[in-house]
Every structure is written in structure tokens, then in C-alpha cells.
């Protein structure tokens, strides 16, 4: 047990990403309000970005912008790994795009049913089916 905690101490970022991911997942599974779910989804996605960014980090090293005038060979070990950053730029964009589409759908649903609560919508649908 103690081992796990020490290990976690060195990897607290990863723990944070897991907690956030679970917060997002929890919101998506349990919450009935669509906007809440959408926010949960965004949290879920950012948690993965956090994970990637954490993998790129090197303690005590600088940001991945190499000196403009350096004529000597660049020492890659001195810089933080830029590749996950690039990947995550894409992921952020994807997450905002998804957010937009999700909100558009949510608005469409609100227009149709007059509520954003999934429970209420399902109840409506059930009573409608019962009638027909």
C-alpha cells in the first residue's frame, strides 16, 4: 500500500488525470441534465490532454522553442518534448468542435421537448408511447 503511495507521489499528475477523467465520466453517466453531461464530456477530454502533456514534461527543462541564433547543435535533452503538445493542440480543437456540435444538438433537443433533463424527456417519450 505504502509503495503505491510513494509511487503516486512521483506520479501525482497521472493521478490527477485519472480523478478528472472519472469526474467527467461520472457526470456523463449519472447526470440527467444535458448541459451538465456536455461539461462532463469536456472535462473528460481535457483530462486526457492533461495526461499527454504530463508525459512530455521533463523536470527543470525549458519550453520547446530552440534558440534562434544557436549555431551549435541543439541539445534535445534540454527541452521539453514538443510532440505531445502538438497532438494535444489537435485534441483541444477536437474537443471544442465536439462541444459545439453537442451544444447545438442540446439546443435542438430543448426546442423539441422544452427541457434539458434527460429523465423528463424519457418520461415524456414513455407516456407518448403509452398513448399510442
Amino acid at each position, binding site marked *: 500500500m505504502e509503495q503505491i503511495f510513494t509511487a503516486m507521489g512521483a506520479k501525482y499528475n497521472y493521478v490527477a488525470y485519472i480523478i478528472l477523467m472519472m469526474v467527467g465520466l461520472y457526470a456523463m453517466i449519472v447526470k440527467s441534465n444535458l448541459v451538465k453531461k456536455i461539461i462532463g464530456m469536456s472535462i473528460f477530454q*481535457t483530462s486526457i490532454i492533461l495526461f499527454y502533456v504530463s508525459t512530455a514534461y521533463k523536470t527543470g527543462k525549458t519550453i520547446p522553442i530552440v534558440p534562434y541564433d544557436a549555431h551549435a547543435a541543439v541539445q534535445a535533452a534540454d527541452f521539453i518534448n514538443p510532440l505531445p503538445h502538438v497532438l*494535444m493542440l489537435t485534441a483541444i480543437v477536437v474537443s471544442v468542435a465536439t462541444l459545439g456540435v453537442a451544444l447545438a444538438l442540446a439546443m435542438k433537443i*430543448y426546442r423539441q421537448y422544452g427541457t434539458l433533463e434527460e429523465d423528463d424527456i424519457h418520461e415524456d417519450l414513455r407516456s407518448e408511447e403509452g398513448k399510442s
Partner: protein
Amino acid sequence: MSLPIDFIVLALVVICGIVAISVKDLMAAAIVFSAYSFLMCLSWAVMGAVDVAFTEATVGAGVSTVFCVAAVFHSTRRTKD
């Protein structure tokens, strides 16, 4: 030396995340979500991912929030959960 800041920011991020999904007012949720994004972007900046942090600041804390607010404006602020 970045450990304490890093740690504090992360703790705040987690708290904001939990608040964002548990607050009963959707507008408040959207704003807390914005705060979450901003704190997250701070945390990334601390980790040296400046480009990612910049993007998250503009997108997550900025545009996303506006989108959320717009959606909440056109539907309802109240929620059961």
C-alpha cells in the same frame, strides 16, 4: 521547484471540475467550467506546454464558455442536478 504551484493548481483544477458538475445553476456551471479551463491552462503552462496552454486559454476558457453560456441562455438555467 515547480512542485508546490503545480500541485496547488492541480488541486484547484480538480475542485473546479467537481464544482462544475455539481452546481445547480447551469450558468454558474458554465462559469466554473471556464475557471476550470483557465486553471488547467495554468497547469499546462507550468509544465512548459506553452502552446497548449495558450490554446486552452483562448478556446477552453474563452470560446467554449461563450458557447456554453449561449446554449444556457437559450434554454434554461435551472437543473435538478
